[in-house]
């Protein structure tokens, strides 16, 4: 299968250019640890946010990518609010997720499939059709046991008639044109950068 992002753009970058971008976001970090102390998920993370920013600054891409810390960020924005240097830490975590997905890191495969299937559903239907989304996700996982984890929740929602999503007027407003255009703009923007980095 060809590597592709959900927008359909090719992914020439191995992640190091993108990591530079994150490095710029956090380069003023003074390692005070406020982000770690504020993070509701820090205990579950293999690297605390503070250590993650240190590795990003040191350009340790492989170590960064091996961590699940950015997957465990729930985008609560507490660290962003409290960082004494005013750094955009939630966006930085989000960008690391994107780099891992673009690199098709085996470790983060399930998370990537979840995001990609979600966006494909939006692309084709305009709104999130939960059934279409779940079916696509489970098929892509190729793991027949995974739906079991979602079963209790699914049963509860189904009992209340809450599972099918996105009915209503624009249920079939597909957004291919918008997704394609975004991919085209991003390719055009990436092209000069690429030349630069290979010069």
């Amino acid at each position: 299968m060809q590597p592709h992002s959900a927008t359909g753009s090719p992914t020439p970058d191995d992640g190091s250019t993108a990591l530079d971008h994150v490095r710029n976001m956090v380069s003023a970090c003074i390692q005070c640890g406020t982000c770690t102390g504020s993070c509701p998920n820090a205990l579950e993370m293999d690297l605390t946010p503070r250590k993650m920013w240190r590795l990003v600054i040191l350009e340790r891409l492989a170590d960064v990518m091996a961590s699940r810390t950015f997957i465990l960020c729930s985008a609560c924005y507490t660290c962003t609010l409290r960082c004494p240097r005013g750094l955009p830490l939630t966006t930085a975590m989000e960008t690391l997720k994107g780099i891992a997905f673009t690199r098709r890191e085996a470790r983060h495969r399930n998370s990537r499939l979840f995001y990609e299937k979600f966006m494909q559903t939006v692309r084709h239907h305009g709104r999130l059709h939960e059934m279409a989304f779940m079916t696509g996700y489970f098929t892509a996982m190729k793991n027949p046991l995974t739906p079991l984890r979602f079963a209790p929740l699914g049963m509860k929602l189904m009992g209340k008639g809450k599972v099918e999503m996105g009915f209503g007027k624009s249920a079939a407003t597909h957004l291919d044109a918008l997704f394609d255009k975004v991919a085209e703009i991003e390719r055009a923007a990436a092209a000069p950068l690429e030349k630069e980095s290979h010069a």
Partner: protein
Amino acid sequence: MNYLYYPGCSLTASAREYDLATRALMTAVGANLTEIDDWTCCGASAAAPISQLLSLSLSARNLALAEQTAPDGQVLVPCSACYLNLKKAHEALRSDAERRATINEALAAVNLTATGSIRVRHLLDVLAVDIGAARLAPLVTRSLSGLTVAPYYGCQCLRPYPEFDDPERPVSMEPLIEATGALVHVWEMGGRCCGASLVSTQPDAGLGRVCTILKAAKGADLIATVCPMCQMNLDAWQASASRMAGENLAITVVYLPQLLGLAMGLDSDELGLDLNLAILDGFREKIKP
């Protein structure tokens, strides 16, 4: 009071009761909602990691449609995740000429343009600021005195944009709860993260957040929420959280407009109360007509 209305995907399915209650309550306070015609998904939390531009463009598409209806209008958004996405697009359109141009280049592919003239408002902002406790109190026909309510704000209506409340110590729900005759449960968890999508995707890590919040709610009769993700984590996952904690954490969880609507004497069907997953008998007793 006129608002354009962006329900978002959750409110058409797992959070249908939030949609019903929002519409019923806004009608009862004399506000007029016009649903954005042909709205589409804001990208939730899935678009941005894949592409920031895609995330902004998906949200801007909805703002562009809203501008066509009322260029100086305000969009009312009940879901905190949708609110944040639409708000980010609004900020990008307004404050960054270069990004405004790029977003509009993308929107041209679907024959739309957005200027950023539309204000994006969370439901709680509108209830606390535009409507307010002073206007609500005289409409209360069924006092909720005797009940203690834990106000749960979650994250993304408070952060990163401190629009209408203190992002560290939120209080905007308190006067509204007090207007119903109920007491406010004093706790530190109102603005603490519920775990968001981690609870479904990484339950081993995420369920702990739900446990912490439900434990801190002990002493309250119910929790009031203002986001479909928070609501689902606190109600649909209660049984799993109780198992994890080794104690019974069951508690009634309702959306804030359901609570206010009940106090105003609105019918529980109209407020979608049958669709809720965690309504305890004691609460049902209390709100019997």
